[in-house]
Structures are given as structure tokens and as C-alpha cells.
């Protein structure tokens, strides 16, 4: 994208601005009636990074993002986006950010090109329609009315709309939901291209793989709290120096008993899988097989893997990310 250094508001002290966080959230709270959606969270997003809010549905990701976008007012806390107070002056932010909302169906009777041109007219500065079509690979569907698009195509159009104004900061809320694996990969490469061009991206997702592939840093959210924050590697190694031994759950085996096996730090059952986190894979597998043999059983689909974000999440919250 063709954005020069002088486009960042014409302010002096470019270096200072580059170091200043693009997003600063502190003590943010938001409730809807009796439901506390966001319960005092804080984090900062650096310029040029891809920052992920990871968590299950209802964790408070979307509420957080919509407050950052200036669409909702926080109940408490401070939110600064591009140095601007998002609660006080959302209008000043909107020109400079790109927004993709979770559910989208836009003007069903307009064509892809017409919707893009419509949104381009809302901004003082905008990218050419051809570039946008190419970026999300919708060139072939340019003249299709949006009601005839598939779910994934609609999602890509919605991402294109977030890029219309060549934004400094892009919010992508569950951008790959409903996409097939191929479309998902092509969107990931688009997001990586955005980072190369210096655009900051904040995305929410409940796909572990997406966060692992894309995000420089991740904040793990659940029930309105940020549980952990850091790079994917940091998060994994901070909790798990150990590996995970997993197999199909055997009802005869007691979880507590498994936790006492050699080397096992923690044992959990999730989705029909028993996972043993262990510092000594060999000892744990030996002990496990000895135990099952004594019972006349055989663990099926036994495997070993490195701990992932999924494990981090499981460990932090006690439940899986996808429910």
C-alpha cells in the first residue's frame, strides 16, 4: 500500500509516534444489564504488529474490539486508539481505522464493485477498487450482487471494506469464520502482507491455528478477563516446558490416578481425549502402558506432541476453546 511516512497526521516526532502504542487499554469495563462482558482488562498494541485476542465465544473479544472502534462506550477505564480517546472522540478515529464486523450482509442488491465504491466515497483517502478486489481475490465476482456471494466470499468482501481507506490500524473480528481452508490461507497471507506494509492488525479469533500462524502477540481472554499475554512461544513455554501425551479416553482409568504417573504434571480430559502434560515423555508412556496392561487395556491413538496454544487455553480456563 502506498502510504508514506508523512501520512500519519503530519505531526512531528515521527520516532516518538512509532514507539507510542497504537492501542492502549487500561481498566476497561463493560456490562450489559447483569452480564459483565469485559471485566477490567488492559493491554497495549505496538505499531506494525499483528495482535490477537484469543478466546471462546462470549469471552468479551467483540465487545472489546467494538469499544476500540468507537462503536460502544466503555463503562469504565481508558481506551486510546492512535493516541485518541476512543470514548470521547470516536469520529476522529474512524477516518484512520479499518473495521470488519463479525456478521456481515451488506446491501444484498448491490454488486461487489458498487459496495466497494460506496464505502470508498465515505473516506477522504481511499484505495483503488481494482486493488481491493485483487487483495481479497474477488475480481471474478466484481459484478455479482452481494446476495449471490457465498459465505466465504461475503467475508472477503467484508475484509476488503476494512481496507478501503488504506487504514493505519485494521480490526478483524473473526475474519476467517465460515471460510474454507483455502480461503483461510489466502486471507492469512493477505494479513501478513498488511504487516509487511506497516499496517497494525488487531484480530479476534477462536482458531488456535490462526493465532499461532499470524499473531506476533496474543491476549488470551475468557469471561471478560485477559488471562495471559505474550508471543505464542512465550505463552506455551511459560506454562509448558513439558510435552503432551494424548490418547482416547479410557473410562476405566481414573484421572487422579493418571496424574500420579511418573513425570505427569497435570492430566485433563477434553473431547474424548485424555492429555497428560509431562516433563519426561519416556517415563510417562512407560508408566501408562504398564498401568493399562495391568488392566488388560490398550490406549488407542496414543501420541506425543509439543504443547500448543490450545493446551495453554485448556490449562488457563479448564475448558476448550471451541465449545
Amino acid at each position: 500500500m502506498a502510504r508514506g511516512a508523512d501520512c500519519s497526521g503530519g505531526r512531528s516526532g515521527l520516532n516518538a509516534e512509532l514507539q507510542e502504542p497504537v492501542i492502549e487499554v487500561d481498566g476497561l469495563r463493560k456490562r450489559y444489564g447483569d452480564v459483565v462482558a469485559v471485566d477490567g482488562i488492559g493491554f497495549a498494541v505496538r505499531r506494525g504488529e499483528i495482535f490477537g485476542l484469543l478466546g471462546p465465544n462470549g469471552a468479551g473479544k467483540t465487545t472489546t474490539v467494538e469499544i476500540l472502534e468507537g462503536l460502544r462506550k466503555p463503562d469504565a477505564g481508558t481506551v486510546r486508539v492512535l493516541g485518541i480517546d476512543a470514548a470521547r472522540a470516536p469520529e476522529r478515529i474512524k477516518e484512520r481505522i479499518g473495521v470488519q464486523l463479525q456478521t456481515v450482509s451488506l446491501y444484498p442488491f448491490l454488486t461487489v464493485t458498487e459496495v466497494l465504491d460506496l464505502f470508498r466515497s465515505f473516506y477522504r483517502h481511499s484505495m483503488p477498487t481494482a486493488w481491493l478486489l485483487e487483495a481479497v481475490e474477488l475480481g471474478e465476482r466484481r459484478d455479482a450482487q452481494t446476495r449471490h456471494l457465498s459465505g466465504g466470499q461475503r467475508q472477503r468482501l467484508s475484509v476488503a471494506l476494512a481496507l478501503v481507506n488504506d487504514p493505519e490500524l485494521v480490526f478483524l473480528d473473526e475474519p476467517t469464520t465460515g471460510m474454507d481452508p483455502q480461503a483461510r490461507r489466502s486471507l492469512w497471507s493477505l494479513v501478513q502482507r498488511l504487516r509487511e506494509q506497516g499496517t497494525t492488525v488487531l484480530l479476534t479469533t477462536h482458531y488456535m491455528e490462526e493465532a499461532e500462524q499470524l499473531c506476533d502477540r496474543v491476549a488470551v481472554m475468557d469471561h471478560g478477563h485477559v488471562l495471559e499475554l505474550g508471543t505464542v512461544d512465550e505463552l506455551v513455554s511459560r506454562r509448558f516446558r513439558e510435552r503432551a501425551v494424548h490418547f482416547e479416553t479410557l473410562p476405566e482409568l481414573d484421572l487422579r490416578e493418571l496424574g500420579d504417573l511418573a513425570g505427569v504434571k497435570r492430566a485433563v480430559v477434553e473431547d474424548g481425549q485424555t492429555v497428560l502434560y509431562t516433563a519426561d515423555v519416556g517415563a510417562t508412556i512407560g508408566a501408562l502402558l504398564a498401568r493399562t496392561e495391568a488392566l488388560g487395556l490398550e490406549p488407542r491413538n496414543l501420541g506425543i506432541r509439543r504443547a500448543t496454544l490450545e493446551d495453554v487455553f485448556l490449562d488457563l480456563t479448564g475448558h476448550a476453546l471451541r465449545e
Partner: protein
Amino acid sequence: MNALLTLTIANIRSFTRDRTALFWTFAFPVIFVLLFGAIFSGGGSTRYAVGWVDQDGTAASAELRQAFAQITLLRLHDGSLAASLDAMRQGNLQAVVVVPHGYGAAIARSAQVIAGRTSGAAAPGGSPAPGASATPGGGAVHAGLVAPSLAPAAVELQVYTDPSQQSSSATIRQIVSQVVSSLDLALTGRPPALGVSDRTLQSQRLTNAAFLVPGILGMALMQLGVFAAVPLVAQREKLILKRLNATPLPRWTLVGSNVVLRLLIGLVQTVLLLGIGSVVFGVTVLGAPWLMALVVILGALTFTSIGYVVASFARTEESANGIVQVVQFPMMFLSGVFFPIEIMPAVLRPVAAVLPLTYLGDALRQVMVGGSAYAPLPLDLGILAAWLVVCLGIAARFFRWE
């Protein structure tokens, strides 16, 4: 400004590509005008077929027939009494007039009496008024042609009408009475002191169509405005409004483009209905075009603001549709669109008095066809403006973008 233009174009495209919306917006009022116009104005012709039974067969009765034949509203069909009544039973005639035997003789006698009296002394005032005696329910009406002073000479025209056809029966009876009265006066030789001359502002087919066309134009503008709620709520439900709210697009631009669309649709509807009114029913706009435009625009704005009020309280597209029906249906039938408020039951008249469509219809009727006023024009416009202001206030307070 650019955004207002592109958004308006986007709205127009969305609207014209949605065939269902298009049909309901334009075809519905047109069908209404054609349908109700045809029903109420009897196919555009208001001539009555009347059987003429001459049992007298004199020069005087022929003269009487001549007098009736001159009345353009009547089309006379000669025949025997039995045949005419038969035709009436079959619905081919709306009334039958019978000139009884002895009519000519009675007229001749009364002429002599009058001649004698005028040569004698001045003793007027004693002559009984010529009258039409009606016996409702009996199926037959006797219009009495009573020769003055000397009662024995009186002779009665018999008029058979159908009590189930109230309005045409009444009209025919009235016409017969009028002809008889004027003949009576001519016979007595007194010049009429008081006369009535019929005047209408439009063509002869004015009556019902002239009432209907402005009414249905008002109804169309009402629906166009109130129904604005439905796409608005749909856009909110589909988060289109929320998405737009995440752009720098000012809200007034969004509202403005929707209002511009409504006004454009209102303009097309007005042209369409005025065209049909003029071509099919001969109803043309008498008032100043600028005044007409003012009333149409104010009406469209007022009802669009009511649409925004509905959109403020409806959560889903379906509930918006339901509320719109609840709002528009009573207005359609209680605001004098299809029939004058004066003939509505007394309990419903206060309802009509508060409905904004009453005043839009009244204003359009006054401006378009110079119809009799329900309220003075400035009051009509004032009440519409008041509705507009109140609804804007409510919408500004309660409308939600998501």
C-alpha cells in the same frame, strides 16, 4: 456531499432491484385507484336506465316524455308496464316511470281552471304544493302531480324503484320530483322564486374519482413513509447501520439519503397517480403546482418520520412489518381515503380527527380538486407539521443504530 450522492444512488439501486418492494410501492396504489375508481363511479358513467310506460298516449304525455328525455342522467326505455317491471327485476332498468291513463285530460282541465282563476280575482296562496309522496319499502314511489286548487283533477305519476339500490333510487326519485315540480309551476303560471343550478368544478365524471384520486395519493404517501421503517430495521438487524457507523459517514447523511429516496418515490407515485387520475378519470390538478408540491413533500416527510418512530421501537424486520400494518391499516380506512369522514359513524369521527392522513388527504383534495374542506388548508399543513416535529423528536430520542 459526495457520500450523500453515492449513498442515495446505492439506495435507489437497492430499491429498484428489489422487485417485490417495487411492485408494492407503485402497483398497489395504482390498482387501488383503478379498482375503487371503477367500483365507486360505476364504470365512469352515471346514467340511469329508466323504463317509460305511457298508458295515456296523448300529446301531453308525449310532452312529458320529452321533458324527461332532456335529462342527461336518464336513459329512457319505452315499454309496457309488465315488460318494464320484468326488465327492472332482471337488473336492466333501475326504475320505471308510469304515466297513467287520464293524464292528458287532467292537465287540460287544470289549465282551464287556472285560466279562469287568473281572469277572476287575486286569490293565490291556496294552491297545495305539488309533491312527491314516497312510500319507502313498498318498492313503488308515487310522485304526485297534483293540479292546483281543484283536487279532483289530480293525477299521479308512478315511479317504481328498487329499495336495495338506495343511492340510485333516491337520485331517480329526486329527478322525477324535480321535473314534476317544474311542470307544476309552469302549469300554475307562477314564475319560480327560488331555483337551484347544479355546478361542478371538474368534468361530469368528477364525483367519486375526484374524491378518490387525492385520497389514494395521500394513502400512497402514507404507506411510502410508514413502510420506510421496514428496510431501516432490516439494515439495523443485518448490522449494515452498525457497519456504516464504523465509517466517518455522518449520521445525517445516512438519514438524509433515506429521506431523499422516499421523496423521489413519492414524486414518482404522485406523477403516476395524477397521470391515471387525469387520463382515466379526468381529474386534473386545479391548484398551484408549488402548493401541490409543498403538500406532497410535507406529507412524505411527515409519514417518513412516523416510519422512523416505528423503526425506533421495532427490533426485528418482522415486528417492524407488523407494527407498520397496525399503523397503516386504521389510517387507510379511518382517514376518509375512500369515503368522506362525514358519513362515518359518529364514534369513529374523533379518531379520524387525530389521524394525520385525514389532513394530508384533505389538503390534497383541496389543492387538487377544490374539494370541500374538512379543515382549512393552513390547519391541515399545520397539523402535518406538528406530527412531523413530534415524530422527529421521538425518533431522535429512541432510534438505535444497532
